[in-house]
């Protein structure tokens, strides 16, 4: 069973008489453990697609199934449970709560999942170590760098061991070097933990790092697979590698 299965997905924004189609009959499948990037220019519907995949937006036509569950038919409680157990979100602007310490930020999803605090504390500490900011756990986000903030946000996304990480422009607010480190971390997590990573970005270099690229263009999705031998882990080196030839077909 595919982790994500999309068939003839259409998304249209309506504001009064103004109708703006964003996605038209899009379809693709993503299996568990894949590392994909969704690339496209601004306004191409990348974030819209991500919001649909995360169940934050459930107004669509066609079919969108996550872990075999059609998103549109789920109740608020069911969708929250799905988000809590299956999906981890990573945002461009981190969305860390400034009044909490890094560790408390990481623990946050645990509270809503109804799990014990002690376990949350332990797991948060382990994850912060894992993403390389273990020493910052008692510090408030105000006092750490952008890259460190994103690492804390990644730890937060991972605390409930989700199957799917949805990353919305995770390097958008970071400098090239830090961005490259974060992407390397995603690769590492994908490889070591088997978590499916879906990175939305307008950074074309991602197509060298992700084995699979979903290119949004003219309300359609072009599904491209990179030759595994050409995939690089390091985004910093990606710019020196020639672009990959399309291995998959357009959806």
């Amino acid at each position: 069973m595919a982790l994500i299965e999309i068939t003839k997905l259409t998304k249209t924004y309506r504001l009064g008489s103004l109708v703006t189609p964003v996605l038209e009959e899009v379809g693709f499948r993503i299996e568990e453990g894949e590392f994909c990037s969704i690339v496209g220019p601004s306004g191409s519907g990348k974030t819209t697609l991500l919001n649909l995949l995360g169940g934050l937006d459930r107004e669509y036509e066609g079919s969108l199934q996550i872990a075999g569950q059609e998103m549109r038919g789920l109740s608020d409680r069911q969708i929250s449970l799905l988000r809590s157990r299956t999906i981890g979100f990573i945002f461009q602007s981190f969305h860390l709560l400034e009044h909490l310490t890094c560790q408390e930020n990481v623990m946050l999803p645990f509270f809503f999942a109804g799990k014990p605090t002690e376990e949350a504390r332990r797991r948060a500490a382990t994850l912060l170590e894992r993403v390389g900011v273990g020493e910052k756990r008692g510090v408030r986000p105000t006092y750490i760098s952008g890259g460190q903030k994103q690492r804390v946000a990644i730890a937060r996304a991972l605390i409930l061991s989700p199957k799917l990480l949805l990353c919305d422009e995770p390097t958008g607010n970071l400098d090239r070097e830090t961005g490259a480190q974060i992407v390397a971390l995603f690769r590492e997590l994908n490889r070591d933990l088997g978590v499916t990573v879906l990175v939305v970005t307008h950074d074309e270099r991602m197509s060298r790092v992700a084995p699979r690229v979903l290119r949004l263009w003219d309300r359609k999705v072009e599904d491209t697979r990179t030759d595994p031998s050409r995939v690089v882990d390091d985004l910093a080196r990606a710019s020196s590698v020639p672009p990959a030839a399309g291995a998959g077909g357009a959806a």
Partner: protein
Amino acid sequence: MTLVGLSRVVGQNIWRNATSLSISAVGIAAGIALFSLFLALVEQVRNVVEGDIVPIDEVEVVPLSSDLQRMASSIFGEDAFGLSDDDVAAIRRIPGVVDVLPRMNLNFSAVSFGGKALVGSEIRVELIADGIPPEQVRDELKDPPLPFEDLRGRQSNRICRYDTDCPRGEYCEVRYDGPPANQLVDADPLTVRRFRACALPVPALLSRYLLEFYNTVFAPGHGYVQLNEGLLRAAEKELQFTTRLGDSFMGPEAVGWRQRNVRMQFTGVSEKSMDLGVTYPIEYVRDWNVEYTGLKSGARYSSVSVRAASKEDISDVIRLIREAGFDIKSRIAEQVSSMVEVLGIILLLISLIVITIAGFNITHTFLMLVLERRREIGLFRAVGATRANIRNVFLLEAGFIGLLAGVLGLLLAYVSSLVFDTMLITLVPQFPYKPDTFFDFQPWIVATALGFAVVFTVVGAFVPALRAARLDPVRALQ
């Protein structure tokens, strides 16, 4: 979401928004302070009015006083007046009645004088008195100087000329033999034998009301010493007054020539004593009534004090008493009680208006908070919070604020009550039944105030909480 998790999130939120939340909580605290202060004031007024001045679980039963009844009395004679022993027994059988105290008024005039040794000047007053069965106060009086009962069986009755002829504790009393005084208008005084015999003083009771009246109205005006129960007990020997039966300051008495003095000894202060008068053991009053007004008046009770099992039972008891053909004397307690109720309702309404306005302020503050925390709410939704979780975070936050405001309000009320008490006790002159405190913070008042604080804050935050729960997570995160 666990309660611990929810509390953590809420605790962090309160800490972070402490300033704006405390400002909006001040309104609730002020309302609660007024609310609990008014309730405590009404409660204390009710305690004093219903407990000390007019016991609300007690009524005085009198015969029906309709014109028809009066007409019947005039036709059939005095027997129709008052209540008989059978009437008392019938009243005693009414469900809800726990205590019945038959009273007999002194039906002729008398004056009392004495007290010079105690208060510095002789007090002379027209005597208003009645009699009650001594067993009704036996348990109440602690170690009285003289037992409150008919002592005539114990006295020597030795013929005497002066007090010194009598045994210790007795005095030489004038007595008459012959028909009742009121039947002697034209009779030959020689047919009546006048003699003196040794007698024990007649035990008498005072009411707290009378003592309070004396202390606040009478004593200051005349420069007399103020009295209290302790002083009365210490000065028991000086508390012998002389009562001249058949005399009056009001005008000439028909029985004037048959006046005689009896000595009375105050034996204590009792709630069962008549308010503005003196109460004797009923046997004395019965015999004096017979001696001065004839046999029939001595066989009837003027009223019966009835005590119900509780304040709640009193209205049923009153109804049953009326159905049994008796009347209830002056329902001052009822009137005072309803006045206190009305006053209480008005004061409570004022405080409720204050709390309601404060509730709207809470709504405003929480709407602002929802706006301020838009992104955070979006994040919560993204990391697995349900709408109910979001709503509960805000409602629990409001509940905590309400509780804190309630505690603050109660503290404010308590401190204000101390200030008011100090002011009222030092600045306002003494008046009857002036209490030591004007506020009674009963546990139920504290519980109600806290409950109201929480409810009004939570209700105030309800709409903002719903709005937060319904926020579109996509827009919230933008």
